[in-house]
């Protein structure tokens, strides 16, 4: 398991660190490293955002990250190091919310592992985003149901377009 690093980072204590992610996934066996960084951006759905608060159910979030790592390893099936870290707390514009990094022998594998991981973090991990707007208002983002019964309904409603095609943007 030392090839997998998963963390929930309380950003009152320390920011997320891309250099640490790169160092973790580097290895003499690996020629390809892919890293995805999610940051707080200025606009969402037409409103001006000043910050985001992230709420997490930490024990299950960490367990979900580990499961995601195991799945990436199984699906891509090459030697691999994976790093998943998500912020907890209140972030300002431009701060890092999530880092996913993958080191693998070749580039295609690194891109695939990193993409798989970030999609799974977004759709499966118990994490909630509350956006704060310039006018002082706040709103919890529309999200992705973890409830299997409900997912089936969403899927049917999407008429099989894709497995994940409900209305919200994420």
């Amino acid at each position, binding site marked *: 398991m030392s090839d997998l690093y998963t963390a929930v980072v309380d950003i009152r204590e320390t920011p997320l660190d891309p250099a640490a992610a790169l160092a973790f996934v580097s290895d003499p066996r690996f020629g390809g490293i892919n890293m995805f960084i999610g940051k707080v951006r200025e606009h969402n759905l037409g409103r001006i955002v000043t910050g985001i608060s992230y709420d997490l159910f930490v024990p299950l979030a960490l367990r979900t990250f580990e499961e995601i790592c195991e799945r990436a390893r199984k699906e891509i099936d090459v030697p691999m190091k994976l790093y998943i870290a998500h912020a907890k707390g209140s972030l300002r514009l431009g701060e890092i919310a999530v880092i996913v990094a993958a080191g693998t022998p070749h580039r295609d594998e690194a891109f695939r592992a990193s993409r798989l991981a970030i999609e799974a973090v977004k759709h499966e991990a118990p994490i909630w985003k509350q956006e704060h707007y310039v006018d002082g208002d706040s709103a919890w983002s529309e999200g992705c149901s973890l409830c299997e019964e*409900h997912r089936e309904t969403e899927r049917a409603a999407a008429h099989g377009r894709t497995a994940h095609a409900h209305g919200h943007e994420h």
Partner: protein
Amino acid sequence: MKVRINLFGALRDADASGYIELEVPEPCTIGELRELLRDHLRTYAPHISVGLVQRSAFASNDEILHNHRLLPEHGQIAILPPVSGG
């Protein structure tokens, strides 16, 4: 038995304490707990949408618990509204 339901995300607005305690029959399935919570919120937190409870999952520290599952014995559970990480 008494169960403590820990709140997250938009459901935190249901109680400032961060949890709701309910008296439930024993044994109690997740589906039954969902009904009881819905009734509770209708009375004590009418600003919370019924649809949101419907789209939420219940979970232990380790896994999502679907409607047919039984409540964990230690009487603690989390309710997870639709997620929006990243």
